[in-house]
């Protein structure tokens, strides 16, 4: 069976800091994705499982309210009955959703208005914004480095793979790890990981993406002194021969 688009998934690295201290990057985190649909309008957030057996897993949602404050709440799944993060309240955006244990069913995170933000597949634990709670500096530019992975979740090999980005802000460049499945990291998210060639141009994978392997993708956000706020999306695309 050749590789199909849905075989290709994007996951977080083991270190996706929400502050400017602590390691950034590392190996692949097979439990967390960095892809989801941000709330189109401010709303409260709900979670529900496709399995009635999911009644013990705790789901922690973290977002930013309409005043810009970071808010968080942990609730326990109640199977196929939706739970609402009512204490967290109306949020302008979600920053991260994580579970403390695998669920038996697929867990869907949505808004009260019914917009699906993400589904957490069985065996995974959640999703997050790859860059979150980052603050620009008033007097100097600031550069952030975060690492994500594109994994071939299928059973066949993707050859001739290339990665490209679409960035409406013009703030972002990216670079591929030198080898598949690397564990390279940066001291903090403000530290250049070293050995990565950053560019906005499409880049070829260093090797065929065989079944189960992943390529690390470093994302560099560069923000000048006094930069304004952003709440937006980066689109990363991988193409190749299945």
């Amino acid at each position, binding site marked *: *069976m050749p590789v199909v688009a849905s075989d290709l998934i994007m996951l977080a690295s083991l270190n996706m800091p929400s502050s400017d201290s602590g390691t950034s990057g590392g190996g692949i985190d097979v439990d967390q994705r960095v892809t989801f649909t941000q709330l189109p309008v401010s709303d409260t957030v709900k979670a529900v499982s496709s399995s009635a057996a999911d009644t013990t897993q705790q789901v922690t949602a973290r977002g930013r309210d309409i005043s810009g404050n970071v808010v968080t709440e942990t609730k326990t799944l109640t199977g196929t009955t939706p739970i609402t993060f009512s204490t967290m309240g109306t949020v302008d955006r979600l920053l991260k959703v994580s579970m403390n244990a695998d669920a038996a069913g697929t867990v869907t995170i949505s808004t009260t208005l019914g917009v699906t933000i993400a589904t957490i597949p069985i065996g995974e634990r959640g999703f997050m914004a790859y*860059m979150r709670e980052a603050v620009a500096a*008033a007097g100097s530019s600031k550069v952030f480095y975060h690492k994500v992975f594109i994994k071939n979740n299928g059973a066949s090999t993707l050859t001739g793979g290339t990665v490209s980005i679409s960035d409406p802000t013009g703030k972002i460049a990216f670079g591929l790890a030198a080898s598949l499945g690397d564990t390279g990291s940066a001291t903090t998210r403000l530290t250049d990981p070293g050995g990565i060639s950053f560019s906005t141009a499409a880049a070829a994978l260093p090797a065929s993406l065989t079944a189960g392997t992943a390529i690390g993708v470093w994302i560099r956000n560069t923000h000048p002194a006094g930069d304004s*706020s952003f709440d937006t999306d980066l689109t990363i695309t991988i193409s190749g021969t299945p």
Partner: protein
Amino acid sequence: MPTIEGIDWFTKDTFTVPPYITVTGTPTRDTSVVHEADLASMKLVTAANAQGLIYPDISSGHTLLWNACWYRLDSLASGDIDLMRAEGTAGGVAVIAYASASGLIYHYIVGGSTFPTRAYTFASWIWVEHIFDVTSSPLGAYTRIDDTDLTSVTLAGTPTTGRRVKLGPQGASAAASTSYYSTHLWGYASSTSDWLGKANAMVFHPGKGVVVADTLAATSVSQSFVNPWELTGASQTVVLGDLLNTQSIVRVITTVLRSPGISDDVTAGYTIGDMWIWGGRVWWCTSTAAGAAVWKESA
């Protein structure tokens, strides 16, 4: 690349578009090119020189990377009939045929020494899917009924010039053909994301009553990921000037993502003269009285 598996056993009264067992890729039915509201299937009454058309043209504007038509056939014919042929100019002909004497439908590839003929029990009705490539010039296919070649389906060239899938006597023009099918349902499937259609690309799964259309490598696969991110803008401190020999420092607040209110007062650290920018609007603080701060919006 699409792999389609569908159950091929149907009764005439319950015929519907075959349920897919598995679909890999996105070989979705494009209703924009399905004529009227007909089911995506066709009933043919087999007879000599049976002819008819499958309309409409694949009109300009569609980007068809593969397309398919399928038909069900009753078993009234005497003698063997070819149900479908697909061939390429590079050689090789894939044939689906029906032997009325034995009631078997079988599949073989002309010249395909390594590909054995396979036979399948044919009940009253069978679903056949016939898929052609319309984007690669050396490819083509045609259909036969009663061992009579039906109109060749020439699908070379770009898909934007209009393509017609025709069933009828070999050589007859589509425009001149007359529909011979009595009650018929027909249809069309297409995809803009996958393709197939080279010679011998059709494979049967014996024992499952299944047609698998596709064995060839697709040209490419692509997946895009939407990655949200956020950044809080920088606070800025601005020295506004020397007032009465006292330097007054006021701030420009850009990081609080809302309008200012009465609680944004002296106790919260605000100063008269502070400027607040949010949502494309600007306010100036004119009073920092506790619990009664006043922010005047700039016109």
